């Protein structure tokens, strides 16, 4: 009884602290999102002034045309590839930051990792455009150094989209992994080594399992926005840059068909949630 009262009064005193965040979430996220759910079941946008009725047609459109499914699968593949590259590049960097570097040098390297994070996304993508194109910075630099002539034109291709997205999202992976790696007690690693484990065994049996929460959090933070990304594919992908996200953008911007755009977005949301839910038992065990 006493405990219950205490927890209730705890909640009451916490309320002023919670209220701003929840009020903001309600106004800024919940209300517009519910409006979008509402729109996704309509034949016309009420703003357009035309008569409208409720329909499931927008959701049916996804299943009646193979192109949406093709694009959704392409976007999911893109999400997986980008996440994988972020792990390959970000995890070792986070390890070095957390365990090898100390003091000033750590701060400097850390800043370098975070720096792109502070610049505007569009600026980053356009700078990649300058680097990747034929006769661009990469092409010119490599040809100046190499004795033979090579032709590098990665712009407007699938690899260009991967490069741009990995660059944008790798800081998430470095940050989340750094936090969990730093929390690992060095004496655990030393104990493993002194009990005869090789470096690889220590990595596999001690470090990776203990840093799994960071890896999982980073992967989720990267995978979800990449699947819905539209700016990077559109600018860097050229002819191959049509993805699920770009089609949704077309519905909102080009043809002003908000209901269909909203329905496609919620199908994406549902698919992503199903994937995360299906992966969660595995991830939980690992974590």
């Amino acid at each position, binding site marked *: 009884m006493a405990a219950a009262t205490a927890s209730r009064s705890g909640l009451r005193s916490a309320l002023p602290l919670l209220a701003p965040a929840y009020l903001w979430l309600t106004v800024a996220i919940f209300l517009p999102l519910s409006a979008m759910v509402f729109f996704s079941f309509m034949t016309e946008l009420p703003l357009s002034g035309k008569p409208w009725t409720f329909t499931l047609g927008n959701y049916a459109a996804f299943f009646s045309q193979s192109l949406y499914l*093709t694009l959704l699968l392409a976007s999911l593949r893109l999400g997986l590839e980008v996440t994988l590259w972020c792990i390959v590049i970000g995890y070792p960097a986070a390890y070095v930051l957390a365990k090898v570097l100390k003091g000033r040098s750590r701060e400097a390297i850390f800043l370098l990792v975070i720096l792109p994070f502070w610049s505007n996304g569009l600026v980053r993508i356009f700078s990649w455009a300058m680097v990747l194109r*034929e006769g661009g910075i990469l092409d010119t630099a490599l040809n100046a150094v190499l004795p033979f002539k090579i032709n590098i034109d990665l*712009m407007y291709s699938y690899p260009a989209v991967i490069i741009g997205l990995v660059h944008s999202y790798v800081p998430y992976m470095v940050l989340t992994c750094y936090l969990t790696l730093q929390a690992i007690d060095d004496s655990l690693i030393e104990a493993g080594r002194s009990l005869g484990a090789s470096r690889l065994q220590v990595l596999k049996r001690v470090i990776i399992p203990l840093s799994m929460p960071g890896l999982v959090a980073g992967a989720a933070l990267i995978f979800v926005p990449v699947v819905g990304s539209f700016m990077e594919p559109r600018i860097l992908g050229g002819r191959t*840059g*049509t993805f699920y996200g770009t089609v949704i953008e*077309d519905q909102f911007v*080009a043809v002003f068909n908000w209901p269909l755009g909203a329905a496609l977005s919620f199908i994406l949301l549902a698919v992503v949630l199903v994937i995360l839910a299906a992966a969660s038992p595995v991830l939980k065990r690992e974590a």
Partner: protein
Amino acid sequence: MRMPDLTALLTATAVFTSALTFAAKADEVHVLNWKGYGTDEPWAVEAFEKATGNKVVNDFFNSEQEMLTKIRTNPGLYDVVMINAAFNDQAMDGKLIQPIDTSKLPNYADISKDKAGSPMLVHDGKVYGVPWVWGLTALAINDKSFDKPPTSIAAMWDAAHKGRVVIRDDAVEAVQFGAIATGQNINDIKDMDAVKTKLTSLMPQIKTFWSSENDWNQMVASNQIDIGTYWSGSADRAKTHFKLPVSLVVPQEGAVAWLDAFSIPVGAKNVAGAEAFINYMIDPKFYVEWVTKVGAPVSANTKAVEALPEDAFNRKVMGDPEVAKRIQFQAPITDAQREAYLALWQQLKVDVK
């Protein structure tokens, strides 16, 4: 927070924002147009404000559908709206725009008769749109890639330019381009399969889909493309203003032409100001300055075009009677057509991935 408080807060916010939105004063002219398209040039706004005492407030749209929605949802806010002639019907049917008293526009008499009398703008003898400028969606080439300019649209399909061809990411424009390539009327496409086949064979040639003038100019500047669809005004601007090696080609098969016009929305608070603004926009003085300083499409006002130098692109190339014979003006498109075009275009883009 208690429910009534929340409601009060939301209502207050709504009232506050709508008060801001509807604060259209009598001596203000609210203009709705594409961004960077003449009406928001600072020197033009300043000159107009000085001459008439009206203050110009610009607002912008990103698509014609958005423009229609903005007029519909903000009755009385806008005084002048720039509407592509192909959308004038839709705006009139929706009772969004009102007839214009052309006797209040001294420059109206100089507008070429075929544009002023366009059935897209004049309904039952009443004028719902004042023609402003027109232009073409034709081809433009990178001068470095051609010894002499091509004459046929077939250059887009030439294997020599594979991977160096661009087309705009716009379903209607792409389908109408396909119609011209297959020798059809852009406003009455009988053989859609032929258009699809033709465009399918174009897709492997494509480097990327451009969406803004800046995309196009950057790709030419870095010599990444040979040829692509482009707007006539933009090609002129690339050549004269940015000094890029770009030439417009109006292929023998034809090109898509569009006409932009000004309308006055129903319920406009400052009709007199709107009339003065439209008259200023079709004035030769404004037009010459616009062409010289920025680069612009072709004015619908014949006097304004004549005020340009003899060798000006908009006079020499666009005024060529041979060109006039080949071009097809865009007529209104139904929503169903638009969606069918988009579906076709998206399918083409997915198939080429």
